[in-house]
């Protein structure tokens, strides 16, 4: 047998082994959590998941999507637990019977980001005022446009500011259809305004000339909820492990782990589970 054929066979054999070994290897108990880009990209999961694994032995596999997509993946039965931040969408998810209950976990807040020069003059004002001025000035604005929790919050903000996006939008309004990070990259490159969650902003490194212009408004409150996918809808849901994860998240230990996560000394998420 010649060298070429031998090496080909070896390659094939290796390939077969590789394919066979991945599903067969005894894996520890694991669950799939559909969550948002903000929790993943802010680094929160990298901080809390090892703690949960050490305690329970359960591996948590996070698929980071926009809130809308994450809920859809759970509706199809492709996740055991969802951790997202769009209260009305979460309540709809429960009402449809895809989850039996929704629990508060934590919150952070949204911030309005823009160029330091602030040509639209929104710095320090309220959200309502800011969005009204942005539309009036037709200042470049980057929208997530991806049905994420942040996108929902942005759309609510226009509405509350009395801006009818359908008629007001034009060249100044850039709908990028991507996650928080890419949207911030775009805003940074364009010197545009953008609504962002504080967590992703704090961990974002390519800020360029951008800075926080509006923060602390009660309307910018951004609560996260967690839900176990209803096993009656999808029998494959890992109820025991999924519930263990939720129980841990809302336990004093899990809540402390969330509060502990800081970037540059700044806390990103604030625990909000009801004391049971």
């Amino acid at each position: 047998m010649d060298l070429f054929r031998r090496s080909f066979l070896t390659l094939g054999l290796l390939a077969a082994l590789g394919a066979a070994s991945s599903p067969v290897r005894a894996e520890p108990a694991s669950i799939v959590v559909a969550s948002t880009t903000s929790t993943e990209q802010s680094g929160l999961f990298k901080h809390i998941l090892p703690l949960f694994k050490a305690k329970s032995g359960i591996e948590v596999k996070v698929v980071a999507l926009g809130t809308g997509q994450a809920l859809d993946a759970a509706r199809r039965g492709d996740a055991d637990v969802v951790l997202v931040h769009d209260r009305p969408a979460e309540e709809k998810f429960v009402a449809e019977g895809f989850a039996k209950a929704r629990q508060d976990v934590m919150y952070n807040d949204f911030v309005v980001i823009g160029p330091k020069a602030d040509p639209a003059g929104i710095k320090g004002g309220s959200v309502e005022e800011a969005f009204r001025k942005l539309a009036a000035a037709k200042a470049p604005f980057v929208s997530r446009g991806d049905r994420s929790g942040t996108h929902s919050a942005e759309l609510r903000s226009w509405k509350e500011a009395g801006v009818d996006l359908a008629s007001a939008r034009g060249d100044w309004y850039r709908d990028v259809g991507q996650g928080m990070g890419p949207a911030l990259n775009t805003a940074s490159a364009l010197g545009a305004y953008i609504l962002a969650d504080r967590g992703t902003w704090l961990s974002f490194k390519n800020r360029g000339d951008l800075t926080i212009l509006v923060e602390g408004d009660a309307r910018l409150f951004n609560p996260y909820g967690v839900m176990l996918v209803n096993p009656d809808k999808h029998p494959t849901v890992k109820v025991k492990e999924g519930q263990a994860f939720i129980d841990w998240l809302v336990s004093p230990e899990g809540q402390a782990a969330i509060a502990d996560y800081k970037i540059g000394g700044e806390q990103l998420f604030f625990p909000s589970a009801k004391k049971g």
Partner: protein
Amino acid sequence: MSQTFQETFSRLWTLDRDVLAIAWLSLRVSLTAVGIGLLLGIPLGALIAVARFPGRGVVVGLLNAFMGLPPVIVGLVLYLLLSRSGPFGALGLLFTPSAMVAAQALLATPLVAALTRQVIADAEAHLGEQLRSLRLSAPRRAGVLIYDARFSLVTAALAAFGRAISEIGAVLVVGGNIDGHTRTMTTAISLETQKGDLSLALALGAVLMALVLAVNAAAAILRGHAVRAYG
């Protein structure tokens, strides 16, 4: 800009075990997919090259068009098939490395088949007369021609590997970019870009390029040896 590149180089030295694990997963997934692509694509391409049947021109055209199959479409279709609500949901393959292998194999197979068909058709043009005089069946002719053109087919394997290891659309959708499980070089680069950590993204890109170069160099050396010894 130059600061980003400087940071990139300094970070190349400090890449940790995470990155090695990601690189290894990328390599494992893509090599497995290419292995499957070769096993399916070479016989398929060779058979299409030597067989004569009605509608062959259409099949060849389709095969060539499938070389341009968009990865994200392959990912999406596979996602719907493997989803718990899809026909193969019971297998529980979504968001696993196996799903990523399947996606890349779907991309690699038509590419290998189309390139093989071309190589074998050319080889047949040279040897056709003799082969036909032997009155061999189409599969036997295909077998002889594959053996004859074996060194040229390495290029098909490398092209398939290049397509597999560099694509992101399919692995992102069916793998889910799960940290420590289905995060590959391309999805990791994309994630770091999204986080605005451009220097780390570039450093990962350099690692990916090195990986591709190493595989190509290994193939070239192997081919060189084989040609010298048995060509």
